[in-house]
């Protein structure tokens, strides 16, 4: 059991979010972290998965999970992501930060649950869900929930949905940047806060390549 867990974790750290999710049980993944174990999961857009459920149990004392996402939706795609983090052990921590850009008529449904159980004293959890809407008919639904049963803890979440600030576009254009390039710069900039968190810089370059090369090109052809 321990060996299998190590293999899974290895895969998680080495591979990028997209491949990672696909290799685990289709649609639903569960991970349990033991004492002092730490894990970073990076979610990338994928044509394959449209309905993902991820549950992380922070069982061991001091275990930590970081779930970062740079997601895109376009055309008429609909993606459903459900992330649950359950703090069972003491001094466990979770940092969930998802950023999604929606083009065309895509839909994103996000449901996040952070539960801190009675014995998870000294734990902390943070959930951030930010959606940038570029498509005229794009839709976002977000339900970030908290269930807190211990008081020596800190938990918070924040979510925003909005469009590109016209003032920002105008500022970039006033410096000679074309609208298409300005939009692309802002979209790339939008993802920076999650990319910055990745300690594996080699992965960052790889992710950027995948994000920009494949996905963004598809939705921002003029840039």
């Amino acid at each position, binding site marked *: 059991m321990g060996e299998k867990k190590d293999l899974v974790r290895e895969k998680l750290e080495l591979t990028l979010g997209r491949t990672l999710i696909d290799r685990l049980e289709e649609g639903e993944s569960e991970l349990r972290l033991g004492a002092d174990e730490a894990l970073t999961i990076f979610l990338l857009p994928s044509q394959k998965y449209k309905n993902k459920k991820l549950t992380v149990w922070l069982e061991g004392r001091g275990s930590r999970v970081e779930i970062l996402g740079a997601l895109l939706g376009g055309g008429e795609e609909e993606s459903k992501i459900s992330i649950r983090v359950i703090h069972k052990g003491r001094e466990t921590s979770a940092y969930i930060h998802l950023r999604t850009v929606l083009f065309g008529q895509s839909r994103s449904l996000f449901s996040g649950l952070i539960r801190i159980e009675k014995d998870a004293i000294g734990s902390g959890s943070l959930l951030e869900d930010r959606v940038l809407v570029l498509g005229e008919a794009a839709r976002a639904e977000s339900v970030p929930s908290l269930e807190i049963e211990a008081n020596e803890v800190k938990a918070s979440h924040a979510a925003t949905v909005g469009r590109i600030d016209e003032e920002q576009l105008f500022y*970039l254009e006033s410096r*000679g940047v*074309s609208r298409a390039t300005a939009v692309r*710069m802002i979209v790339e900039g939008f993802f920076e806060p999650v990319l910055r968190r990745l300690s594996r810089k080699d992965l960052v370059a790889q992710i950027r390549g995948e994000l920009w090369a494949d996905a963004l090109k598809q939705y921002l052809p003029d840039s």
Partner: protein
Amino acid sequence: MRPNAEKSILLEIKDLYAGIESREILKGFNLTIREGETHALMGPNGSGKSTLANVLCGHPRAQVKSGSIIFRGENLVKLSPEERAKHGLFMAFQYPVEVTGVSLFNFLKTAYGSVKEKIDYARFGKMVRDEAEKLKMDPAFLSRYLNEGFSGGEKKKAEILQMMVLSPKIVIMDETDSGLDIDALRIVSEEINRARESFNPGILLITHYFRILKYVRPDFVHVLVDGRIAAEGGAELATKLEENGYEWVRG
């Protein structure tokens, strides 16, 4: 031949009626700026200084009712903000917007590449760092997200840095002096003077206070009151205004 005739006209504004959305603020505004000239535009609050700045840089909310604005032979009103920049217009904003995730350096690089059409990356990096040093800006700002968390003074310096790097044909400074402390004002003014020497732009210095005019000596001073030029003159007009206030101009 008079010296003036040799200098080409950069910007010619004739009989401009314009405003913000539906409100008309400029009522018959006229101004001509030639290459290398520094014009100071002063006036009380609400006189139309910001409106003029917004009209010149093509802000979406600015509306031109009638009149003409010719910029280096082109009808400015017909150009998009990006085209204006490519044509050589630069606006130093009063309240520069923050753009998260886009570093100042990368932003400059993109703008430079767009306006100048080719870029020598090695030289570019050095040029930017040199300019930042002259402005006494911490080089760390170059990798920080554009204007995010910058103080008012740091934002203004960042605008000047962009101006120096892009070396435009005409510079419009929208109340650059507001919010600067004495040291910052002096540094920024030094850079503006250096710009005059190095790439000889036309400058429209929109200012509320007189301080900056002590450091950046204008060739012409115009006073805007209620949407029109109420007085024009040389640098000494600024001194008169400082002594007598705007009421003197209203007459």
